[in-house]
């Protein structure tokens, strides 16, 4: 009994065949898993190791090396806020503070399963839209402090009331 459901399983096996070496498939496979489950669970790594022959040490190295992969549970909306030079110059810091405050407030109410999580992200490559943030995979440009409230409400209307 695989920990991956049919679709994902097929996708993973596809990747394993797609590249010159199995190991090359590690990144795409992890992306696929994360798209479905939100994060990479230990049992996933075990399965990859035992069933698909992707060494668990290699996989763990990759997960801990790259920013995108998460080996801890994630929240419904992961905010990745760019804090690099241009975004910083155009007001990232106050916006980040604002989001923090919201999350803190929410956590006070909802505890650990709040809707948002915030990650100060190194760079999102959209300096002409600075300050920029990613909500899950969606890019939000000009996310200055004054817009934060309505932005967050857009994603989770209820929670901010």
């Amino acid at each position, binding site marked *: 009994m695989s920990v991956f459901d049919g679709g994902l399983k097929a996708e993973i096996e596809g990747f394993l065949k797609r590249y010159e070496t199995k190991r090359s498939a590690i990144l795409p496979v992890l992306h696929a898993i994360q798209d479905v489950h939100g994060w990479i669970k230990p049992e996933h790594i075990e399965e990859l190791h035992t069933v698909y022959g992707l060494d*668990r*040490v290699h996989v*763990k*190295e990759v997960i*801990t*090396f790259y920013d995108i992969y998460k080996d801890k549970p994630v929240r419904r909306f992961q905010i990745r806020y760019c804090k690099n030079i241009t975004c910083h110059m155009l007001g990232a810091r106050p916006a980040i503070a604002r989001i923090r405050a919201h999350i803190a407030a929410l956590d006070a109410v909802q505890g650990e399963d709040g809707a948002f999580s915030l990650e100060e992200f190194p760079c999102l490559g959209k300096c002409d839209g600075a300050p920029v943030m990613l909500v899950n995979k969606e890019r939000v440009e000009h996310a200055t402090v004054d817009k934060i409230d309505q932005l967050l409400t857009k994603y989770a209307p209820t929670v901010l009331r």
Partner: protein
Amino acid sequence: MSEASKGSQETVTFTLNDREITVPKGTTVMAAARQQDVYIPHFCWHPGLKIAGVCRFCLVKVDNRPKLEIACNLTATPGMKVSSVLPEVKEAHKWALEFHLVNHPLDCPICDQAGECKLQDYYMEVGKYKSEMDRPKVLKPKALEIGSELVLDTERCILCDRCVRFEEEVTKTGALGIFNRGDRAVIGTYPDKKIEHNYQDNLVDICPVGAFTSRDFRFKQRVWFLKEKPAVCPGCSTGCHVDVHAKPQVRTYFRLKPRESEVNGFWMCDKGRKTYKHMNQEQRLRFPLLTEASGVRRRSTVDEALAALAATMLKADKSEVALLVSAAYTCEEYAAFFEFFVRSLGVTNVYQWREPTEDREAFDGLLYRGDHNPNTRGLSEALKAVGLPGEVKDGFEALLRQAPKLVIALGPELAFQFPSLPAQLSRLEQLPFVSLWTIDGAAVSHVGLKHLLPMKGYAEKRGRFLNFAGKVGELADPFPAGSEDARDVVEVVAALSEILAHSL
């Protein structure tokens, strides 16, 4: 393996520190320097491992090249002029060291590596400066039990990557990885997976700092108190060349380390590393024991013991005498032993003493062999030399069937490699008179054994072992014996013949 072997027949001549050096084509400057005993400081480079080039310590200056280059990945080309002693190079080394020490905990006082730590060595060599680092350091997990033989301190680790490469290239277990990145990077195994193989302590050896420490040696002794002498590991028929580390003034052995040789390369197995314990006081047979006619067993002097043995020998006819010989003694000892008992006394009942459960052909593909005796080859050749069948077979049962009046038994040296030893000893107790020559203290508990002679350990005597391939392993520089009464076979035989010569 080593860069030198990669090179073809054609050679390259280049200059290192104004010294002409000719090496096989394809040799790196680092390897060449090592062959010439020119020392270029380094952490990540190891002759037995692939090149990583990450510590950036072995920087050298090559003429007409703008940047300093790392010697470990710098292939020697004809006419190249390399220097590892220029001021700018020294400065680079100093800063390389500084960077290594930025987040190093400097807990040398409680670090077992202190005294043989490369960081300390280089500090004395290229450092001796006041550190510029005055900010709080990055803290990482300490004293992790990462393997049955190992303790890992990730704070001391300088991420030279040697251990990871060892796991990948030598043992091929790949248990170790480097997780996270930047200065948060740590060495480790996969969560709650431990390193499990027979070569763990090599990680301690190749670790240039105190990140990996041996659980067996941990906190036992400071290395600067230890004296090391070369020897050959008696753990199996590979006969790895080793250095025995001991503190002679307290007659205690502390550890074994591999000595580079064509037999074992740079490594040795953990089983072999345990082959010092039996020579320490608490485990060894420290004095002769003999059982008098009254049946009382008492401690005796060596002379008494030998006299008693000689007396018994005189009473017995040579047909009633049997020799039970294990393969743990040196060629010289066998020669003397058989010369005396077989050639001059005419004893013909010679039996080999082996571990019945052993699988002599077994081999783990790296070093460790199923034949757990250092000198099987030497024994059979010694037997052939005196006209006896040389093939290796366990003669223990045959001996019991023959049930001779007098048995002279050369006991195995390593009890832990002889699981059946206790059982075998109890069975020997049934025989009328067994003179057991051994270093194994456990023999004392077998009261039925009438005559016990304490033997010297392999680190305490001179001689040669022949390994599985017939390669000679030399025991040249012995420690003083762990107990005054301990003798080697040659000495015992000499004394016996002396006594017999007089009494005849």
